[in-house]
């Protein structure tokens, strides 16, 4: 079982962004790195000049690099970006919306991100025939569905392994809204909350996190307890979604758990210590409500 580092979902400052990928290239024990802006096209100019050097450094360090595309495409310039992603790169691209499929030649290899609705064998078979070589499944899928899809053996199956779960995406920017702004004049307030802005219920219970036009879970999903079951099901990869913590250490915990040199309970305890403010949850994986927390 391999490890994929997912794209940064939050809006990180350019220097932090560049530093993050430099460290991942040099130190993180991951097999594949997906990078690029997925959530909001307005953020792209901040990283446009940083992308090529980061990709090159990651490649040189032996990581397979995948270029991510936007999840919600409405504007003409966003369509053009999809065309650019399909045309400009020689490596793998990650499809995060069917828009990109319109631009990818038949037979060209690609990966599919967790925001594309792949729930069943029919959809998986279509994508495999089009050239999908890895499909990261929607994080809400339970183990039973994951097992059925892995059993189809038509693409590599990747599962959301760690991180706040992307739950929804919208045309409206909630970061702007809670700051009394509109999306068009947002002042990039989402940059203040690289892991998202926590949303509490009226009873002051932490519930969600707002990341611009995206809504994330407040809890961080964690499949450390299900690693053996996922291996047995034939899952090829786990995706680690970057949070503001030591992702090199996160990758190490997952690697050791996969190898079997770290027990599940100890692994969960170590991971929770790395993200003390983000309770770990596995409700989706065990077929219950997503917010349900891990019990060790």
């Amino acid at each position, binding site marked *: 079982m391999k490890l994929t580092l997912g794209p940064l979902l939050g809006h990180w400052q350019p220097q932090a962004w560049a530093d993050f990928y430099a460290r991942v290239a040099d130190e993180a024990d991951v097999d594949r790195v997906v990078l690029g802006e997925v959530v909001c096209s307005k953020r792209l100019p901040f990283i446009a000049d940083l992308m090529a050097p980061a990709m090159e450094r990651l490649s040189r360090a032996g990581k397979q690099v995948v270029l991510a595309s936007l*999840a*919600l*495409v*409405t*504007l*003409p310039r*966003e*369509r053009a970006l*999809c065309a650019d992603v399909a045309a400009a790169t020689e490596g793998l691209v990650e499809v995060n919306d*069917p*828009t990109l499929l*319109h631009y990818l030649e038949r037979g060209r290899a690609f990966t599919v991100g967790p925001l594309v*609705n792949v*729930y*069943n*064998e*029919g*959809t*998986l*078979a*279509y*994508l495999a025939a089009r050239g999908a070589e890895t499909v990261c499944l*929607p994080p*809400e899928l339970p183990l039973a*569905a*994951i097992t*059925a899809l892995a059993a189809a053996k038509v693409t590599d199956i990747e599962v959301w392994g760690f991180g706040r*779960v992307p*739950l*929804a*995406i*919208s*045309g*409206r*920017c*909630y970061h702007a809204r*809670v*700051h009394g702004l*509109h999306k*068009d004049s947002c002042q990039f307030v989402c940059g203040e909350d690289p892991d998202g*802005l*926590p*949303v*509490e*219920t*009226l*009873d*002051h*219970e932490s*519930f*969600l996190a*707002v990341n611009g036009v995206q*809504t994330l879970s407040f809890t961080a999903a964690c499949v450390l307890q299900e690693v053996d079951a996922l291996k047995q099901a034939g899952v090829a990869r786990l995706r680690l979604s970057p949070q503001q913590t030591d992702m090199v250490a996160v990758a190490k915990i997952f690697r050791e758990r996969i190898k079997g040199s770290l027990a599940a309970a100890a692994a969960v305890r170590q991971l929770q210590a790395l993200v003390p403010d983000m309770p770990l949850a596995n*409700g*989706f994986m065990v*077929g*219950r*409500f*997503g*917010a349900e927390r891990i019990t060790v």
Partner: protein
Amino acid sequence: MLELVCPAGTPAALRTAVDAGAHAIYCGFADETNARNFPGLNFSRDELKSGIAHAQARGARVLVAINTFPRAGEPGLWHRAIDDAARLGAHAVILADIGLLAYAAEKHPALRRHLSVQAAASNADAINFYVHEFGVKRVVLPRVLSVEEIATINRDISCETEVFVFGGLCVMAEGRCSLSSYATGKSPNMNGACSPASHVVYKQEGDGLAARLGDFTIQRVGKGEAAPYPTLCKGCFSAGDYEGHVFEDPVSLDAAQLIPRLAEAGVTALKIEGRQRSRAYTEAVVRAFRAAVDAHARGLPIPAGVLQNLTEGQRSTAGAYKKSWR
């Protein structure tokens, strides 16, 4: 003339919609194959057969929504739904899942395929993908687009477009939201219900009213304040210094006054949300919108709104159709 596509959660609502002037009625089977899988709602095979006969006899068409995403390992329920819709003479099926689109295109090439709003095809490239790959004839546009964007899309695609003009408003891209699943374990995409009634509890707190979804309090209103649907995205929360409706106010979409602009933008059909509502709602909303569509066809102004009581929170919005909504 613009086509008016109206909801029916029950056979009685279907007949009501036909009588009130619907050009087309959409409905679903009483199971997880459609996105309004609510208790006491929807159609058996026999009921659909009678409903189609009733509608056809009066010149109306019936569209069958099979717009959830089949469960891995158990596609049979969804495949049978498509087979039966075809056999019973549905005018079209409304699909969201790529696998189901491929199945319908292969097994029932003559059956018209509409792309559900649950597929959230939000630009011309995505729509063209579904048209080229699966022969989609009409796409129901997601409620994240402005009128200008709809016009742009229509210039670049070869299929028809259908847009929502009234009813409950998803603020998230449809079919790409697992908020409900996160709170309750029931997934709109997999189980066909957002904020399912089985997990909703209303509690009177003195003169106030609280709504809980699963373990989470999502709304609390005082005496005399309008009660909202218990949908997560219309709930009251706090985020940073902000306290209130973080995602959307408890409002409904009412785009009646935008009908002339939507027509200019090249839209073929107008859709009313609300298969879960009563036939009193169906009667009032369909009649009002048929009058609006007829007025527009004759070059007359659209009659002013009369549907305020039927809207969630008793307030309405033009939603994403106006760019300031974002």
